[in-house]
C-alpha cells in the first residue's frame, strides 16, 4: 500500500467501475418498466375502487412507503423463497440480481401508483365528458384523452422517482449483487483504498444523475410543447 490517499487512483478506478454501470442500469430499467405495469394496474384498481383489491393496494402502498428499501430488499431476499417453497418452487439459488429487480419493481410500483392516481385525478372530468360527447366509449376516452394528459402531469414526478431509484440501486450490494457498488467493495478488499473507490463511485453516480436530469428536462419540454407558457413552469 502506497500513500494513504492517492488522488490519481480515482482516475484509475473509474474505468473499472464504469464497466459495471451496465448492471446498475439493467436493474434500473427492468425495475422501472415492471414498476410502471404494477403502478398503472394499482392506480386503476384504486381509482375504480374495485372491492377487496382496492384495500390490498392501499395496504401495499402504505407498507412500501412505510418501510426502508433496505428492509424491503431483505424481506424479498429471505421471504420470497420461503413463500414459493409452499407451492414447490425452489428459487433459493436464484441470482441475487432478480431479487433486487423484484424489490425495486415493487417499490417503484407503489410510488408510480400514487403518482398516476394523482395525475389522472388532476385531469378535468370535463375532458371525459367531451370525449363521450363525440361518441368515444369508456376505454377510448381513457386511453386517447385522459391518459396522455395524465402522463404529462405525472412526468416530473416520474422522473424524480427514476432518479431516486437509480440512487437506491447502490444498496443492492448488501445482498451480494455485483453492480458498481459491489465491484467497489471488491476493489477496496484488493487495494485497501476505500476513499478513492467511493470518490470514483460518487463521480460516476453524479454524472449519470446529471445526464438523466438533462434528458428528462428535454423530454419534458417536448411533451409540454403544446402547452401555453403559464402551465409548464420549466427552468
Amino acid at each position, binding site marked *: 500500500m502506497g500513500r494513504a490517499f492517492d488522488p490519481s487512483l480515482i482516475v484509475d478506478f473509474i474505468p473499472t467501475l464504469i464497466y459495471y454501470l451496465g448492471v446498475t442500469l439493467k436493474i434500473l430499467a427492468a425495475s422501472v418498466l415492471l414498476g410502471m405495469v404494477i403502478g398503472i394496474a394499482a392506480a386503476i384498481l384504486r381509482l375504480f375502487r374495485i372491492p377487496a383489491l382496492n384495500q390490498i393496494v392501499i395496504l401495499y402502498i402504505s407498507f412500501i412507503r*412505510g418501510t426502508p428499501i433496505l428492509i424491503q430488499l431483505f424481506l424479498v431476499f429471505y421471504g420470497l423463497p420461503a413463500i414459493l417453497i409452499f407451492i414447490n418452487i425452489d428459487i433459493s439459488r436464484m441470482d441475487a440480481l432478480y431479487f433486487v429487480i423484484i424489490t425495486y419493481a415493487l417499490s417503484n410500483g407503489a410510488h408510480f401508483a400514487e403518482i398516476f392516481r394523482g395525475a389522472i385525478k388532476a385531469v378535468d372530468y370535463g375532458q371525459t365528458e367531451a370525449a363521450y360527447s363525440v361518441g368515444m366509449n369508456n376505454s377510448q376516452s381513457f386511453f386517447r384523452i385522459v391518459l396522455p394528459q395524465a402522463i404529462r402531469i405525472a412526468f416530473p414526478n416520474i422522473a424524480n422517482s427514476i432518479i431516486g431509484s437509480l440512487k437506491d440501486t447502490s444498496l443492492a450490494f448488501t445482498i451480494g449483487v455485483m453492480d458498481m457498488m459491489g465491484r467497489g467493495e471488491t476493489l477496496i478488499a484488493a487495494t485497501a483504498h476505500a476513499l478513492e473507490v467511493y470518490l470514483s463511485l460518487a463521480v460516476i453516480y453524479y454524472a449519470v444523475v446529471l445526464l438523466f436530469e438533462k434528458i428528462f428536462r428535454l423530454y419534458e419540454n417536448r411533451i409540454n410543447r403544446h402547452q401555453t407558457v403559464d402551465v409548464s413552469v420549466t427552468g
Partner: protein
Amino acid sequence: MTIDIPFIWTAFKEIIRALPITLILTILPLLAGFIIGLTVALIRIYKVKFLSRVANGYVSFFRGTPIIMHIMLIYFGFPLLIDQISKKFDLGIQSNSIPIILFVLTALSLSAGAYLSEIFRSGIISVSNGQMEAAYSVGMNSFQAMTRIVLPQAIAQSIPNFTNIFIGFLHTSSIAFVVSQKEMTGAANIVASTNLKFLESFIAAGLIYWGLTIIAEGLSFLIEKKATAYNRGGVQ
C-alpha cells in the same frame, strides 16, 4: 424453510431497543439540516455573490449522489483529513478515538441540509411577494418581514414536505448499519444472524418502521391543521 411466527415477537422486542439510536440518527441530522437548509435556501434566493455558486454545487452534488456515498466518503475521508491536520499542527487528536456515529451524523446532516434547502426555497417562493410589501407598508424592515411574516407561512406550507423528509430520513438511517451502527436495521441484522432467522427478524423490523411511519403521518396531519389555522379561507 418455515416461518417461525412466535420468533417475530422475540425479535421485535430485541429490535425496538435500538429505537433510540434510530431516532437520534433521524432527528439530529434533520435539526442540523434545518439550519443548513435555511441558510442555503436564503443564500440561493438572494443570489449572494460567490456563496450562491457554492450552495448550488453543494445542493446539486448531495442530491445527485446516493446517501450511502455521503456516509462512506465521510466515514473514510474525515479520519484521513483529521489525522493530517492533527499531524500538521501537532494537536494530538486521533481520528480513531472519535465515535463512528459522529461521522454518520455529519454525513446525514449534510444530505438533510441539501434536501431541506430545496423545500425551504419552494416554501419561501410560494409566499406571494405582496406579503413582503404589506410588511414593509406597516414599517417592518426586511429582517422582520422575513422572520415574522414570510417564514411562518413558508414553514406552514412546507409541512407535508417536512413529513416526507422525516419519513425519508427515518428510512435512510437504516443505511447506517453498513458502517456497523447498531440502529434498528443493525439490530435486526444481529438478531437475524445469531438466531439464523433472517425473515422473521426483518419482518419485525419492517413492522416497527411501518408503525413509526404511520404515527409520523398522523402527527403531521394534526400539526398541519394547527399551523395553517390562519388560512381558513373564510370570507372571500
